[in-house]
């Protein structure tokens, strides 16, 4: 079976680190530096689990909260924390904000099952 990984592969070009990246490999790394996120958003398939690795390059702790589910994670200074996130079933933009700073990160939930068309066999 061709999995959703292959199905979404190549959907978006993440060559510009500041722009939207994809959930290729169901795993993406987000760097926090000076309270800002790079990339600023992640496009992922509705209902899928994606692993987001938060890399804190600052000298202070960042507490992140999401406006979906019960997403919350604390990333100590200079450390890396990995979280599995279930992408909401309803398409839309979901925000992850950093408490105490203006930085934010957007999780873009897209209905990949239709974006991929009917040529892919799902592993769901």
């Amino acid at each position, binding site marked *: 079976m*061709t999995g959703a990984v*292959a*199905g*979404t*592969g*190549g*959907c*978006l*070009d993440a060559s510009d680190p500041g722009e939207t990246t994809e959930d290729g490999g169901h795993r993406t790394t987000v760097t926090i530096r000076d309270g800002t996120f790079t990339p600023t958003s992640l*496009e992922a398939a*509705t*209902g899928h689990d994606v692993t987001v690795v938060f890399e804190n390059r600052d000298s202070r702790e960042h507490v992140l909260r999401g406006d979906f589910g019960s997403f919350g994670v604390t990333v100590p200074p200079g450390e890396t924390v990995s979280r599995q996130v279930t992408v909401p*079933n*309803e*398409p*839309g933009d979901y925000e992850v904000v950093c408490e105490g700073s203006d930085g934010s990160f957007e999780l*873009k*939930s*897209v*209905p*990949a*099952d*239709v*974006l*991929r*068309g*009917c*040529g*892919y*066999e*799902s592993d769901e």
Partner: protein
Amino acid sequence: MAVGTKAMSELAFALVAGIGFGVCFQKGRICYASALSDFFLFRSSRVGGGILLATLLTTLTWSGAYLFGGGAGFWLPSWGFYGLLGGAIFGVGMILAGACLTSTLWRVASGSGQYALVLAGVVVGFALTGLIHPWLGEWYFAPLWLGTGTTAFALPVPAPVVAIAFVGVAVLAYAALTGSTRRHFEGEIDEDEGRIAGLRASVATGLVGLLEGTRQYVEARTSGIDPGRALRRPWDPRTSGIGIALTATVWIGVSGVWTVSGPLEGWIALAFGTVGTGAVNAVPGLAAAFPGGVSPGMGVIAGFLAGAFLAAVAGGEFNLDAPTRSVGVAPVAGGVLMGIGAKLAPGCNVTNLYTGVASLSVHGIVAGIGIVLGAYVGTRLLFRPQR
């Protein structure tokens, strides 16, 4: 090694299933575009009846597959207004082209240059939509999304019960339409009859006609079948419908439901990739669709072309003919619209009107309605009475 053997045997089955579909489509002249336009223009249900028979028989057998295997093998994507919109674009395109996607394939396999132009248009349509692929998810599918994918088979009653109820309603609706047509042409409609009484009379007339037609069909086949004649002559669309349903039933047991536009896009992406990685990467949609090998679905497409070719040769109908100038731009334009519609719906006539409806998939039914509406608009625009 075991995985490789399994993949190879699935591919071999795919070719056989594809040949089955291709033979049935070519011999029965199965074309969704002509079935719909014939009905809208002349109230003819000959080809449409075969398609409906295929769909309803498949609904019954697939409900059994769902009962034992759940959603495995079914394509149940999320649904939304994009199904209506993309389906309508596809529907207009197939009327303009004069063929649906599958009848384009069997006509190309029969040597038609005109329908090769339609297929070229489909490739252009896929490529054009592929160029905007990076934005489709966020700017098109997400805003038009209405719900996650599901099927009526998932209702809290056994799937076969749902299937039988659906088939019953569909048969009554078909009887009402054909009965109304028959009463209209035979002048049986009383101007003073009420709407309910008229509907009842139409259903009764339609059911009688359906039973009579079925009796004649069965009698003609039980009195003996001449295999030579069956190879040479076109088939009754109902025979093709039964063949399609049988093939689809075997195929879901081996792999899954039958889809066409996606695997066809896989072949197009593979062809672009063969030209060079630059060619396929230039079109993000094709890069995303690039399969890396021949999937079972793509094997069915290859088998379909082979089956249609063999059927055309057996019937003495294979004829390489170049398109004439008189056909104008309609074949290419219709093909382009079909390619775009198949990406935006997503799905083609088989994926939505056959597989989607037979799966009782919400997306398939919504996109199928879009295709029928588009075909209606296309027919009315293209076949306007001359003043």
